[in-house]
């Protein structure tokens, strides 16, 4: 079973429906006893980094997510949920993240490319795979739908599994060990997104056996 960690800041509906369409058993909860029963986790998130971290810290879910990372159970952060996996973010003033992956969340520069870029980075962009990962096996297409103003800057190349070009190389898929993240919403990224979710589910099911 996959658990969607509900800390009050996610678009839980579309990701849960995507799991339903794939006939995957899931639960949505903020109760650590219930969450403990699951064999894999999705950390969703829409909104501000700082607010999300305060809720995670207040509810004890921050420690719970750190414990997942210590276990063998796969964890997938989506959008803000991915950014939370890193060390800190400058969105609305500096805030500390979960520090499960090395790197910081910074604003996308408008002037990094040849011409001035629009921020938010919004729309379909193509992925370049940087590091092989079971999460990125057998992808149908290259395009994912991005909608974000902040991106992860990491010095450690091995945690960046795929990037999308937008002035800078925007980390699109990240991961190390059992901790993964996608900057885009896989449930909104058509064939590619659904393949990534399928791959994640396979990992979770493999873990169960």
């Amino acid at each position: 079973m996959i658990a969607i960690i509900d800390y009050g800041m996610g678009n839980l509906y579309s990701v849960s429906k995507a799991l339903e369409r794939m006939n995957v058993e899931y639960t949505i909860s903020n109760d650590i006893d219930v969450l403990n029963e699951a064999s894999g986790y999705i950390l969703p998130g829409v909104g501000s980094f700082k607010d999300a971290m305060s809720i995670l810290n207040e509810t004890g879910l921050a420690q719970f997510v750190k414990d997942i990372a210590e276990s063998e159970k796969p964890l997938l952060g989506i959008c803000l949920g991915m950014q939370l996996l890193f060390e800190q973010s400058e969105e609305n003033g500096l805030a500390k993240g979960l520090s499960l992956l090395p790197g910081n969340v910074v604003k996308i520069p408008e002037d990094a490319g040849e011409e001035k870029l629009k921020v938010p980075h919004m729309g379909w962009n193509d992925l370049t795979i940087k590091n092989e990962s079971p999460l990125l096996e057998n992808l149908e297409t290259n395009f994912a739908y991005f909608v974000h103003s902040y991106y992860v800057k990491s010095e450690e190349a091995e945690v960046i599994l795929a990037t999308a070009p937008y002035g800078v190389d925007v980390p699109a898929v990240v991961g190390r060990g059992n901790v993964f993240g996608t900057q885009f919403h896989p449930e909104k990224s058509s064939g590619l997104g659904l393949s990534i979710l399928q791959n994640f589910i396979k990992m979770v099911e493999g873990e169960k056996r």
Partner: protein
Amino acid sequence: MITKRIIPCLDVKDGRVVKGIQFVGLRDAGDPVELAKYYDEEGADELVFLDISASHEGRKTMVDVVEQVAGQLAIPFTVGGGINTLEDMKKILRAGADKVSLNTAAVVNPDVITEGANFFGSQCIVVAIDAKFDETIGSWRVYTHGGRTATDWEVVAWAKEAVRRGAGEILLTSMDSDGEKNGFNNALNKAVSEAVSVPVIASGGAGNAEHFFAAFEEGKADAALAASIFHYKETSVKQVKDYLKSQGVNVR
């Protein structure tokens, strides 16, 4: 590289898609989910649902529509029409929409843009602007209430103000071009797109695939929206994209 987006727009009244949808082969041409799926299969990059319900019940129904669409579709969509408060935004976004579009409410109470952006992030907040050329100011004027009410705002000034307050995207409709099918208003599109730092969706006037090309080349738009030419099958999303590809435009 980021692609240029093609966005069909669907008007929804009391939970049903209305206004001239001529589709054969669908069980029910007024069903938002079926139409959304149809456009998804055609290659639409995202969708806009505009709620034109006049009643409170109709608005409540819109939340169900959003849930149904989000439950069955794997592309993003924006919902506009009758969204006035942070509570309205919460309902629509929690039901599975990716962005909300504010029009009249943003002009009447600009704080609502900031509230939405602070809570959900700018990327969720679209400000829709209805623009009409006004000779007395030698520029375009912002209209509200479905184009019925003139405001004191000049369009470029308002677009900049909306972005300053947290809008993450501008949906720009030319009232002069709308329904004429003679092409997008690219002077307007260019003026706004070059003045703001966020993406601009061109709307109003699409008649053929060349018009989309011009919206991106001359209008500097990041996305282009159309309703009737897609609904009446005068062209299709796929035809438009094939043409754009042939002209070297980066599309999905």
